[in-house]
Each structure stands twice: as C-alpha cells, then as structure tokens.
C-alpha cells in the first residue's frame, strides 16, 4: 500500500473527496432529476419492510417456542403477508418510475463531455493531450468503472446504510438493556456494558481486518490496471483489424496473422494474465480469501453474544433471531460504510478529472465587433507578417507570411505536403491564432471581431469534409429547419441537381446508412458536391476549396474545374491543390514552401521565374508533355 501511495501524485483527503463526490451527485441529479429520489425512496421502503418482517417473524417464533396460541400465530402470519404485499407494491412502483426518470443519464453526461470538447479552441480540441484526457474519462468509466457515475452508488450506500443502521438499532436496543437474572453464572459480565464493548470491539477488529485486507488486495490488484487496459486495447484493436474488410488484402499478402497472435500473447499471456496469476496465487489471492473469511465471522460473533444472554435466560428464542438479524445488518452496514468511504476516496480523483476537463478555459480572445454585412462583398483580408507554430511542435508551420487578398479574385495555393497550405487556411478562418503578426479584416485585427460573425465571412470545403449521416438537406443547411428552396438551388449549383432529382426522398434522403438504414450510400464525388453545396448555402464572401479533387478520377476532376467559375461567382476564392493543373484557371498563384510564401504571380510569370513553381510544375507536367 505505501508503494501505491508513492505512485500516486497525492492522496485525496476524505473531506476533499466528499466534496468532489457531492459535486458529481449534483451533476447526476441535474442530468436525471427524480431518479435519485426514487431510488432512495425505494431503498428506504425496502429496508423498513425488511425490519418489520424481522420483528413479526421473531414474534411468531416466540409464540411457537412458548405458548403456541393459534390466534396469535395466525395473526402474525397474516401480518407478515400484508407486509410482503406492501413491500412489493412500493418496490415495483418506485422501480419503474425510477427507470423512466433515469433514461439516458449516462448518455447525457457523455454528450455534455462531447459538447465541451467541441467547444474548446480548435488548437486544444485537436491537441493530443486534451483528446487523451477526453477519451481517458470514458475509458475509466467503461473499464475501471470509476468516475461520475460512481458517486451515485456511494451516496446510495450511505443513505441506505444510515436508514439500515437506524432501524437495526431500534430493533436491537432492548438486547443491551434486557438483564440476565442475577445469580446466573457470569451475570455481572452479561449485564454490564462490557458485553457491548467486547462484541463491538471484536466485530470492529474483524471488520477492520477484512477492510484492510480488501484494500490491500485491491491495491495489489490495481497494479495490473495498466496491463489490463493494454490487453483490452490490444484485443479491441486486433479484433477491429481482423474484421476490417479493407485490411483483408494486406492481412493475406503479408501474413499478418502470426504477428497479431504474437502481439496478443505478449499482452495477455505474458502481460495481464501472468501478472494476475502471480498476484492471485500469492498476496492478493490470500488477502481476498482472508477478507471473505473475515466477512463471514461477525454473524457468528453476534450469535455468540446473543446466545450467551439467551442461555442465561435473558430473553426468548424469537428475540434471539430478531437481535441476530438486526445486529448483523448493522454490522454489515458499518463495514460497507467503511468500504465505501475508501471507495469514495479512490473514485474522487476520477471525478476531479471530469470536472477539470469540463472547466478547461477557451484561451482565444473573443472580441465583440460585428462585421459589416456588405452586399458588395468588399471584405479585405490581409496577413501581416504572420507566424504560427503548433503548440507541441519545434518548427514554425508558417513563418513571416504576408499576403493581401484581392476582392473577387481567385487565388491558387500550391506546395508540397506539409508546406503550410492547410495551416494557412485554418489561420484565415481563425481556427488558430498566430503567435506573431496579425490578420486584418478591413484593417482591424480579426481577434476583435465576434468569432461567429467573423467565421460567417468564410465558406470552406475541407479536404476531409465531414457530412453527417442525416438528411441531405440538413447537411446542406446545417440545421433541422433550413430553407429548402435555397438548399435545392445550392445543390444544383454544385452539380448535384440531376442526382437530387433521382432520389425519391429528395432533400430528406439520409446520407449513408449509419444513422438510418434507409439512407443512400453516395460516391466520393457526389459527397464532395454535397459538401460544396453546403459551402454555397452559407453564401459567404470568401470560398475556400481545400484539395477538392484528390479522390476523384480525371473526368470528375475536370468537371469540378469546369464548374469552378460558377461555384465561385463573384466571391473571393482560394483553391488549394497539389495538382498544379488547378493553377491554370486562377488569377494568382501563391507557392508555399516550408511555411513561407516563396513565390507569387501568374502561371506564365512563375514559369519564367524558374523557381520552386517551375520545379513542381515540371514534375507533373512531365507526364503529359512528351506525347
């Protein structure tokens, strides 16, 4: 155990962990109001009827052991049955309403976390550290069962425990005060508070030992957590690989199966299973055995104490069963409370992780200026000596970039992979803020604008555009209630008109089958057109196309090229591609290399300049020149 503590950064105090647990409970309550109250009502009614049953049974047994009055026996039997009816009626009522109140609690929580992640600054949301934290929260919940939901069980056991102890004490209090007749052997002891002390002490010691060995065993067992999570991840990964149709070809040609089996053996046989085997044979196994041995002893001790007094003639046999059962429940509750107290302390850091995540700040400065809505689309955007570096990277992704967009022109952005083209676009759309320099819209630093307003200036079709498996029209309008005519018009402009007519459900056709099995699987080219239609629907003064033709065959590519003029209209357009053919229909070309703009100008000028552009051009044009 000391070793384990060293591994942890810090141990949370009971008070602190209680605070986090409380915070988690409040959150759970707000996610599913009513669920908790019903659960407790259910627990409490159950406990009460349980005790009533014990009491009535004891009376019945007393009657049996002593006077055997038939009318009393019948009375008690009837009361027991009545008690049973009430118990069950309450149980089913509370249970079903609770089930209803509690639906989607876990999902609402996950959705809340998801929403938080999406609302973070983009640089954070895509950062590995934040994403790891995000997924870890889910992993902890799914695999270790640690986190917000754990608070629920802890509270439940505390409240249930409190009621249980209270009832137990009421039923057993007479045990302590009923006196053994004087003159019996050992009456001084049995009648004095010493008996209570002795019983309590023995049970406390046993409970303590049981809990201690349980915690110790848990700590030893949790040393396998890493190995277990690695094993789980490995199993899931290999299963995914094996099921993946796309991997099936490589799987066979490169005979990946032996590699997969070896990897699994490493993670299971030599990893998790070996560790578990070692611990369960030795310390952890023995401790668990000792714990379960100890857990079963208090019953006997209780019986022993009650039995001694009964033997001495203090009370009846019925009372014996009553006291034993009541006291057993009390002692169970106490040990469970101790166990849950330690559980709470183990769980609280996981709760803290969730709230820490939820409280992550947005660091980007958010101004309040509104952009003027100009019908002439006169928006001047300028990069002034802009440099940008990714948070964890050593090298600048963009360095000293200066560029001014001329309204209504078409700019082609070219360069090798990793030369900074995409970063340039992300800065322009303010997904990132530059570390140096500034970006100006109509002469004002873009940070000073309201971010939503600013983003309204841009429509982007990203290379990795993302359409949801939702109705076609909603994907274009980005909303449940969109303008249907406008969506239709945009789809037509993007060259999707014919296809749209062929769809029986038109704009209400679901894209792909993942969400709705009746959906339609569109080809890559068609999806691209929908993405373009979405950009058109937004009707922003700037339109940016990021590698729109990478996945297309030459005919489809040529089609996009042909439509380029219609798509852009009088907007300012930026076209990113590593297919240099696209440069031919743009007014200007900017060549990126290692984060800088190395050349700018028209195609003919750049060819003459014999620089980077010419090099790139010839690498491609070479295939076509020599015929």
């Amino acid at each position, binding site marked *: 155990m000391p070793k384990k503590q060293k591994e942890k950064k810090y141990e949370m105090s009971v008070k602190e962990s209680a605070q986090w647990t409380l915070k988690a409970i409040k959150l759970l309550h707000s996610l599913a109001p009513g669920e908790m109250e019903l659960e407790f009502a259910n627990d409490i009614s159950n406990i009460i009827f349980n005790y009533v049953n014990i009491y009535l049974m004891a009376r019945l047994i007393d009657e049996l052991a002593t006077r055997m009055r*038939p009318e009393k026996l019948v009375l008690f039997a009837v009361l027991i049955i009545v008690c049973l*009816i009430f118990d069950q009626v309450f149980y*089913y009522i509370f249970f079903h309403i609770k089930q*209803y109140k509690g639906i989607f609690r876990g999902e609402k929580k996950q959705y809340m976390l998801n929403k938080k992640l999406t609302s973070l600054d983009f640089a954070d949301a895509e950062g590995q550290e934040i994403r790891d934290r995000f997924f870890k929260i889910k992993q902890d919940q799914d695999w270790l069962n640690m986190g917000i939901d754990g608070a629920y069980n802890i509270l439940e056991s505390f409240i249930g425990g409190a009621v249980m102890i209270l009832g137990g004490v009421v039923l057993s209090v007479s045990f302590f005060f009923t006196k053994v007749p004087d003159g019996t052997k050992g009456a001084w002891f049995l009648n004095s508070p010493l008996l209570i002390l002795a019983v309590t002490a023995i049970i406390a010691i046993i409970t303590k030992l049981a809990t201690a060995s349980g915690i110790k065993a848990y700590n030893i067992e949790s040393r396998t957590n890493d190995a277990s999570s690695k094993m789980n991840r490995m199993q899931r990964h290999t299963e995914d690989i094996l099921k993946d149709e796309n991997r*099936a070809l490589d799987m066979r040609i490169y005979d990946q199966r032996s590699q997969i089996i070896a990897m699994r053996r490493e993670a299971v046989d030599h990893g998790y299973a070996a560790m578990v085997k070692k611990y*369960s044979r030795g310390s952890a196994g023995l401790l668990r055995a000792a714990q379960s*041995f100890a857990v079963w002893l208090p019953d006997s001790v209780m019986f022993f104490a009650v039995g001694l007094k009964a033997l001495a003639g203090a009370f009846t046999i019925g009372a014996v069963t009553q006291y034993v059962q009541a006291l057993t429940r009390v002692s169970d509750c106490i040990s469970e409370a101790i166990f849950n107290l330690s559980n709470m302390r183990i769980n609280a850091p996981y709760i803290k992780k969730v709230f820490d995540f939820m409280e992550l700040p947005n660091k980007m400065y958010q101004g309040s200026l509104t952009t003027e809505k100009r019908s002439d689309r006169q928006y001047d955007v300028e990069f002034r000596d802009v440099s940008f570096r990714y948070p964890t990277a050593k090298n600048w992704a963009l360095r000293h970039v200066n560029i001014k967009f001329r309204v209504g022109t078409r700019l082609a952005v070219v360069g090798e992979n990793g030369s900074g083209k995409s970063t340039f676009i992300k800065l322009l759309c303010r997904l990132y803020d530059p570390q140096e320099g500034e970006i100006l819209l109509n002469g004002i630093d873009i940070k000073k604008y309201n971010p939503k307003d600013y983003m309204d200036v841009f429509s982007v079709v990203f290379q990795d555009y993302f359409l949801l498996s939702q109705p076609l029209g909603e994907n274009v309008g980005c909303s449940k209630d969109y303008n249907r005519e406008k969506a239709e018009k945009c789809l037509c402009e993007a060259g999707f008109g014919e296809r749209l007519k062929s769809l029986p459900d038109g704009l209400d056709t679901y894209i792909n089958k993942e969400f709705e099995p009746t959906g339609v699987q569109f080809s*890559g080219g068609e999806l691209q057109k929908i993405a373009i239609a979405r950009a058109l629907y937004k009707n922003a003064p700037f339109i940016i196309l990021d590698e729109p033709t990478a996945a297309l065959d030459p005919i489809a590519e040529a089609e996009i090229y*042909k439509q380029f003029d219609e798509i852009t209209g009088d907007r300012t357009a930026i076209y990113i591609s590593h297919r240099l053919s696209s440069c031919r*229909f743009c007014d200007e070309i900017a060549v990126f290399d290692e984060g800088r703009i190395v050349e700018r100008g028209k195609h003919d000028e750049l060819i003459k300049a014999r620089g980077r552009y010419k090099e790139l051009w010839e690498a491609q044009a070479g295939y076509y020149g020599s015929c």
Partner: protein
Amino acid sequence: MSEKDVKDKKTREKPTYGAPRCLLFTCGRVWRYSKQFFILIWTTLAANLICTVLNFYFAPSLIGTLERGEGIAAFMLTLLVLGGGQALVKGIINYIDKNCVSYRQILKSRLTEEVTEKIAATSYPNFLTEKFKNRTSQAFEATESGVINSFCDLITYFLKTLILFGFYLYFLTDLHPLLGFVTGILSGIMFFYNRWAYAWGQRHRDEESEVWRKWDYVRDNMVKLPFIKELKLFGMTGWIESIFREVYMISARLSVKREKFFAWRGVVNIITNVLQQGFAFYILISAAIRGEITAARFVLLVSAIDNFAAQVGGVFDSINHVRQDCLKVNNFMEFINYPEPFKFENGAPVPRADGYEIKLENVSYTYPGADKKTLDRFDITIRRGEKLAMVGLNGAGKTTVVKLICGFIDPDEGRVLLNGQDIRDFDRRDYYRLFSAVFQQFSVIDSTIAQNISQTVENIDRLKLDDCIKKAGLEKTIKKLPQGIETHLGRDVYDDGIMLSGGQTQRLLLARALYKNAPILVLDEPTAALDPLAENDIYMKYNAMCSGKTSVFISHRFASTRFCDRVVYVADGRAAEVGTHDELIKLGGGYAKLFEVQARYYREGDIREAIRKEKENHA
C-alpha cells in the same frame, strides 16, 4: 414489429451442433487449454455445496440448541463448526475464484487465436458475404464469454441448482407432500412469466438497438476532428443538439412503453408471491398448532421454502443459460468449420521459378449481390518480368483485376493462370507468398515500425531492415524519432504511438514491400494523396525495385505509364486497349481522351478561355 419477429424466426437458422456436442466440445477445449481451470471449477462446485448446506443449518441449529437448553458447550461447538466452517469455505472459494481469473484469460486467449487463425486466412470471398461477417462477430462474442461460460454454467450453475433442488424438495415433502409441489408450481409460474416478459423485452431490443446505434453514431462522430472543424465554421451546435434531442426522445418514448409493460410483471409477481407465502404459512402454522414442529424446525423450514422457490427458477434458468451458451459454442464451432472455397493445405505447392507470367483468360466477375458484371471477358497476359500499367476511370474494374491477379477472388468464368497453371489448384497461402503488394486500402498494425516493415515479431533481419528503410526514403523520418524503429504506430494500443502522415505511410508500405521482396509486384494507386514531388519520387523508387520482376501498376493518373513496358486501358470491365503509351495515343481511343483531359491543363494557352468556349459549344 411482430411481422419482423416472424421473419426473424424464419431466417434464424437451426444450429448445426446440438447442445450435447457443444458441451463435449467445450469440455474438450477447456481440458486442452487449461487443465487447472477444469479441475478448479469442479472444486468450486463442491465447496459451494458445502457452504450452502452449512449456511442452511446455521441459524436453525443454534436456535435448536437454545430451545432445547443444551448448554453452552453444545452451543459453542455448533457455532464453531457451522459458523467457522462457513467462513473457511467462503475463503477457499474466493481464493479459487481469484486464481481462475488468469486461467480464464488464457483460455479466452487461446480461443480467440482459433478465431484469428480462421479469419485471417479464410478465403477472401467469404469476407464479401454478410453471413461470414455476422459469423465473425458471433465468433468473437463467443470467445468473449460464451464458450467458457457454457462449461462453468454447466457445472457451477446447472449441477449445483439441480442438487440443491433435490435437497430442499426432500425437506419440504417430509413435512407435507403438497408443500414442495405447490411452492414448485407457483415458482414455476413466476419464472416462466418473467421469462416471457424478458423475451418481450428482448424482442423490443431491436427498437432499442436502433436508439443505441444512433446514439453511438452521434457520440463517436461529433468528436472527430474534421467534424469539429466544420461545426465551428458552419455553426452546427444547434443542429447536433437537435439530433441528440431526437435520439433522446425516441429513447424516452420506448422507455415509457417498456416500463408500462413491465409494471404488469409487478402485479403477477406480487400475486404469486403472496399465494406461495400464504400457502407455506398455512401448512407451517397448522403443523405447529398440531404441535408437530418446534421453533428451530420452523426457522429451518421457512428458509427451506425460500431456497426451494429460488431453486425451481434456478433449474429452469440454468438449463436456459446452458442452452444459450451452447448456441454461442455452436456459433464458434460453425465459424471455425466455415467452408473454404479456396484450397489451402489441400492445394498443390506453387512451383518455384525464375520468373512468373500471369494470364487472365477471358475472365468475368460479378460481385455478390451486384446486377452488373464488373469484369466481362477480361483478357490480358502479364509477361515474365514485364511492367504493366493499368489505367481507367474509377469504377472501371481495375481493383477487381488486381484482386483476381492476387488470388483474392476467383473468376466466375475464365481462368487465372500462373505460368500456365490454374491458380485454383494451388495452396492459396503459398500463392500469396509470390506477391509484394501495395493496395489502396492497407493494414498498418499498431505495433513498432520494425514489426510493420518486417511483418514479424521475432528474427527481424536488421541489416535488411535498415537497407529497406533507406531505399524507401524513410530514414530521415525515423532518425527524428527518439525510439527509432522501435517507435509504436497508431494510438489504439499505445499512448506513445505516433501517427504517420500520408506520405510517410506510403514510404512505410514501400519499405514493407521491399522487405518482402517477392517475385511479383502489384501497386494499386499508391500515391493518390501525395504531392507531385513525393509522387514522382515514390514512383521512381518502385521503378527501381521492380527490375526483373513481373509488375502491375494501377493508377488513374499517368505517372506510371512512363516507365511501364505496356499500358492496359480498362473500360466497361474489359481490357479495352493494350499497347505502349505512344501506340494508344496514336490509336485515339478512350486512353487518348483520358490523357487529353488531364494534359490540357498542363499545356500552354488560356485554359479558362478554352473551357468557356467548350461550354458555349455544348450549349
């Protein structure tokens, strides 16, 4: 819904293997893979029975000694034997349980390996069928719990409840012949009613699984980076929120329906419970009034009635459990015995030769479920040591040709010949050894770079590895990594894994192909996502690699045609045009047109003007 149920029942096939065979199979597997586990489970059964009996007698015996006034010695002895004994046995059970965990894991691991072997080697066409896909998921599910559980449930559940059922029945019948019978019948009614209600719930799971599928979709997709990007730019927060609400509302609606239905379960349970308890009390109390039972015996009988009632359900339940488990075992067995259309161990070994010629002889192929032939009498010979380029539009059938060449699918008509011999006769696994291939869809495993290139875990030839890395142009990338070739790839398994860029991945695949160094090279559009310089570079490297080898290059770009000996233009599922680049250009067919479409943008002159003119003409 009910219509679908009927349909479900009809389409659900009868399991191939009956319960006895499944249980025999599973016992054999447990014995084969972990004898310790086999023995420990039987020990657990014995210990559990002992413990139950001790517990049963515990309170009644103690009360009995008190009632009879037998004194402190008898009381203490009973306490020690029954109370202490119980605790001791519980300790032992727990110790065994803990020790079973690792054996269970190993057992599961061995079973999963059987599935892995099958799935990784099965004839590729199996992969294209829905049936096989379903079987795969079922087989994995079976290894997860089903197979092992069938063994454990049989012993620790079914046998245990059966023995205890007999034990308690004896007790009750002893008091009153009807007591056991009535209690049993009422428990039976309750059990079957609950099972029926449960089955109702199961049937409505289809509806609910729709909710979960939708929720999973929203949950997983809304945190994907490309989506977050669009969410910010297009302001989709409201949209995604309303989709979530929609899913939630479906779930709430179903929940009301479910809880309303299950409320009836409460009514039935309460009635049967009351009848059962009432009858038991009637018998017990009247016996007591007649002076037939003592207080201690009363306690014993009350507990016997409760336990017996539980066993009645338990027996049915355990049979059901074992039967369910057996279905899973059946799924597992059916999967590992799934028929193979290809020959493997039973096929001829591939004869070793200096070079290989591959001939597709009037090959036709239709994908299962498709209504159009993808390939229609496709005919081509790839000569020994020849470099062949294959071009065509998306969907023309190029990838299908590759799959035929590599032996992933067999043609519906015609033959694929390797040096004149039909490849269907060969051991397919041996045939795959002939190929170094890079496909559009690849499989990079989340392990180290070295393992991914060499495709082995042990005995990696370091010199060869370094050489391949150098030739593939991956050296610079690897040098930058602190752990070099031992760096993990991907983040599914290792937190320190790295993600390779598109270009780096292509070089990794190249290195892997080099390391394998097989006599036939097949490349299917390896450079789609690369910039021109990288594309050119990779092509040059493949060109260097394939000297003397039979190679096939597939692309919809023309980079490959420059250094290939011959070009095949694929259109409408046929080898429409075959010849050198110049010959095909001269021919002026589809190939020439396709070339022109791309080439025009690289020629001098005002392209925008040209497009405008073309459109005007069109109009």
